């Protein structure tokens, strides 16, 4: 029988049908085409720039910028370099993005819960609000807010909201915490509170791990830290006779406001626009996250005697959080990227300062490259952090 079997033919596949060789050939061809196209663009661009005497170089970064910037987190004047001006832009972008993310998250969670409320009116008002806001372009909303800030009256006739926030044609002035002269005496208490909170959290976690049962330690840790800090606040205030941290309420002097914190119209319009637009999307993520939690979980929690609030806080929300993290990350990134629309409302963010730099120096390519690199870095760092957080949340739950 064995002899009847045909001899094993050593077949050789022709190279044009061998997938391994074809794969290599295809990739080589792909690289040649891509590199060729890029090389064509590059050489054309360099030839054009050489003709215009604008060869790309980063030398402009150390030249004086000689333009003024409306607002900045750290001191700036026009004699500073372009590099420093761009840094101001980065800081301004981070400022509006951080404030926006925090406010949008708070309002978004409130919106998401409202959309699921058993109160008919609240539910429907939230739905109408969401449908209106998310179907109108962000830029149009920003223009509207900016135009609205321009209709505010002079500072002398500011619109007052409970005497804490004043709206006027130079922007918004609002009450803000202010450190007193004895703030230094309070700092050790802050550290003490932080340490007490962390220590309590760690001890509780170890206890939970020993007893091999789940538990919640974070709220009590926050309460403990808060209590320590408050006691310190009262102690310092009563012994020194002056509170270390006070609310500085703006007051109208003859021509302008004293105290409080001032926001320019551009910043106010950008922040309000970004927060309102993003919070609607966050609200939808929160709503679908809560709805995605198994209905039996809610019923079981209610059957165990938890109140609706406890059910939401202890059972539904921790599980919904896992579903919500990835889309939430992309909303935070969207907010950061959308903050580049600041250029349309006159807030000096990175993109707007880069535009001025570009116009003054003519260094198109380096400036655009730097701006893109900055946004990419923010995007990558944020997604790395959120991936880490996501992973941590997932592990705790399992």
């Amino acid at each position, binding site marked *: 029988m064995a002899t009847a079997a045909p001899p094993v033919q050593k077949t050789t596949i022709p190279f044009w049908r061998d997938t391994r060789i074809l794969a290599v050939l295809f990739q080589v061809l792909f690289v040649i085409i891509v590199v060729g196209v890029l090389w064509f663009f590059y050489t054309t661009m360099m030839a054009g720039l050489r003709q215009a005497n604008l060869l790309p170089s980063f030398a402009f970064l150390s030249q004086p910028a000689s333009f003024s910037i409306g607002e900045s987190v750290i001191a700036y004047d026009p004699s500073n370099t372009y590099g420093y001006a761009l840094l101001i832009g980065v800081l301004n972008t981070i400022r509006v993005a951080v404030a926006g993310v925090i406010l949008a998250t708070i309002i978004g969670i409130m919106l998401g819960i409202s959309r699921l409320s058993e109160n008919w*009116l609240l539910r429907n008002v939230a739905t109408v609000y969401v449908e209106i806001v998310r*179907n109108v372009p962000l830029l149009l909303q920003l223009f*509207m807010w900016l135009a609205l800030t321009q*209709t505010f009256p002079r500072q002398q006739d500011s619109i007052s909201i409970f005497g804490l926030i004043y709206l006027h044609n130079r922007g918004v002035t609002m009450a803000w915490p202010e450190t007193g002269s004895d703030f230094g005496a309070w700092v050790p208490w802050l550290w003490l509170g932080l340490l007490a909170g962390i220590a309590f959290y760690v001890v509780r976690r170890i206890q939970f791990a020993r007893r091999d049962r789940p538990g919640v330690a974070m709220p009590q840790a926050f309460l403990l830290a808060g209590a320590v800090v408050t006691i310190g606040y009262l102690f310092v205030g009563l012994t020194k006779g002056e509170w270390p941290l006070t609310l500085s309420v703006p007051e109208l002097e003859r021509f302008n406001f004293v105290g409080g914190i001032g926001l320019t119209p551009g910043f106010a319009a950008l922040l309000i626009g970004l927060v309102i637009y993003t919070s609607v999307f966050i609200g939808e993520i929160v709503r679908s996250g809560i709805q995605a939690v198994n209905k039996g979980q809610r019923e079981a929690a209610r059957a165990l005697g938890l109140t609706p609030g406890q059910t939401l806080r202890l059972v539904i929300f921790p599980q919904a959080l896992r579903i919500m993290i990835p889309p939430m990350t992309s909303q935070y990134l969207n907010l950061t990227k959308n903050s580049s629309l600041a250029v349309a409302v006159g807030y000096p963010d990175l993109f707007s300062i880069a535009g001025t730099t570009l116009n003054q120096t003519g260094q*198109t390519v380096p400036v655009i490259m730097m701006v893109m690199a900055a946004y990419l870095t923010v995007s990558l760092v944020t997604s790395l952090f959120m991936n880490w957080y996501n992973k941590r949340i997932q592990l705790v739950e399992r």
Partner: protein
Amino acid sequence: MATEVSQSQARAPQPGIDVPGWLRKNLFSTWYNSLISIVLLVIVFQVVTGFFQWAFTTEGWIAAASNGRLILVGRYPAAELWRPQLALALVAVLLGLSGGVWRGIAQALTIGFAGMMLVLTALWTQLPPANPPAPLTTELVLVGIAALVGGAYAAGRAGGERLRWPIIAGWFLAYPMIILILQGFGGATVPTNLWGGLMLTMLLSVSGIVLSFPLGVLLALGRRSSLPVVKFFCVVYIELIRGVPLITVLFMAQLMLPLFLPSEVRIDAVVRAVVAVTLFSAAYLAENVRGGLQSIPKGQVEAARALGLNVVKTTLLITLPQALKAVIPVLVGQFISLFKDTSLVAIIGLLDLLGVARAINTQPEWLGFPGGVWRETFFVVAVIYWIFSFTMSRSSRQIEANLNRGAR
């Protein structure tokens, strides 16, 4: 048994309008719900009355009303207005036919479209006459288009299944044909820098989807490819574009595209914006399509390979059609966000819907209005954006529901 059942049915509470009960259950169930309800009632009352008071007393509507043509087609020459009207008629015929053949969402869209034409006609008769007057009176054109939709719908119903493939082919040919109609050929061309308004917004967003579609699908396939070089390139491209704001891509296209090309090649601002929107949209589309590709069970590919299909055939005939069908709702969602994002071209100076609104606000005629006319123009433009996005998001939800029903 039977009598017991009927008795318990007789005892069942009568469904009826129980206003106090409904109020107690839905608005005043607990003290905090009552508080929320009362506060919200006050706010809603204030907002609604304030809105109507403003809408009926303000004089500023005149700004948007006398710029109707600017809002719809921008600075498109009045003598050439038959081109956009012809393009609209083409869309109307295709939409009507689709509505007649497919019913469902297409039918609802057809009715909505015809209704919108009639509403526009009614609005148009209230407007001050255009200067210079258009060659064809707009009211007639609008009514004609509404009639065309109706006729095409009837034809579609009569034609039935036979028309299915011709209509699909028609939709595919519609985009190049509309571009050709609007641009004109031979001697009489309308330069793209005169295009504007709603027409430009629609064109930019449709181009963003249509032109980026092949590129996006290729990028998605490349990202899932087993060839490391191709995969690397696709990943870098997708992540690079998704990591930066659209406005930087738009600026790059405006400033760097002319540098990349030889100086003989001149491309104007609208085309540059289309290139930017296409490159940007392709990266997002690729991620959506990749999601669809990942949702396809591995067995499909294995079965196809076992049947002797090669990689290309497996992709084109088995995986891609299923993946694309699965991501239709997501693609509509992307189209909506692209539709809203095209408003960014107003920053680079194009007169799209938003750019037109800004231009109207700064017209010298309206300087006398206290506080300006921005409330009214922005409101009109916002309503236009809202109608389109809202309609599309509703349709996408409907498509999603239909697809899910088919899968069960």
